[in-house]
């Protein structure tokens, strides 16, 4: 199967639920387990939250989400045109957070890495951040 969607929305926290629901509904076109669906929704929630909280840091901006199905693989791309990440490897370390909110867990990228098959983070300070992640689903239905 080949299919795609592209959605953009303002960087409002209430859109986190919308984004993960949309990505989940899109991925559900495939034979997919409940766990795989939950993994995708959780990873989307992390990527979109990062875009809103870190990328735009309370400023208004546009978050773009693209989802693509190629065969049994789901690819999700979440982009913002926010402040960017100065040191991507540092930001991807477990428990790292530069947020002023001391109750941020710093686990966003760890969740994405653990729940998806691949994760790529491209960022430039002052330009924005693009997170690309993929997951092959439905292996348990193959037999």
């Amino acid at each position, binding site marked *: 199967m080949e299919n795609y969607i592209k959605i953009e929305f303002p960087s409002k*926290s*209430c859109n*986190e*639920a919308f984004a*993960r629901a949309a990505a989940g509904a899109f991925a559900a076109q495939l034979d997919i387990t*409940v*766990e795989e669906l*939950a*993994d995708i*929704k*959780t990873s989307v*929630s*992390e990527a979109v*939250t990062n875009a*809103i*909280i870190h990328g735009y840091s309370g400023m208004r901006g546009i978050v773009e989400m693209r989802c693509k199905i190629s065969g049994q693989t789901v690819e999700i791309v979440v982009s913002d045109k926010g402040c960017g990440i100065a040191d991507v490897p540092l930001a991807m370390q477990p428990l790292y957070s530069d947020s002023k*909110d*001391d*109750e*941020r*867990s710093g*686990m*966003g990228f*760890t*969740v994405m890495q*653990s*729940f998806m098959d691949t994760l790529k983070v491209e960022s430039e300070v002052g330009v924005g951040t693009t997170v690309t992640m993929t997951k092959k689903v439905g292996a348990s239905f193959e037999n």
Partner: protein
Amino acid sequence: MEMTLERVGTTLVAKLDGELDQSCAAEIREKIDKEINMHSIINLVMDFDRVDFMDSSGIGMLIGRYKLIKARGGKMLIIRTSPQVDKIIELSGLKGLIEFG
């Protein structure tokens, strides 16, 4: 997300209902902390029976409440988590700190 709070002596039971993410984590945190401080609460039970989604924003909130309860010499218990919630809790390492039932 909806939440009901019940006090049993010095124990607070927080029953969560809905999806726990960044959009509601701060509000949940504030309501629980206010109740803890107003009523000299020592122990905290968090009931996840009706929580069908949680991301790492929820983990941050749980770690914060754990620190608060620990500082008061109490215990924190998390009960009735779904497989999705359980998976992210497992990843966070919280299972080594907080009691689960």
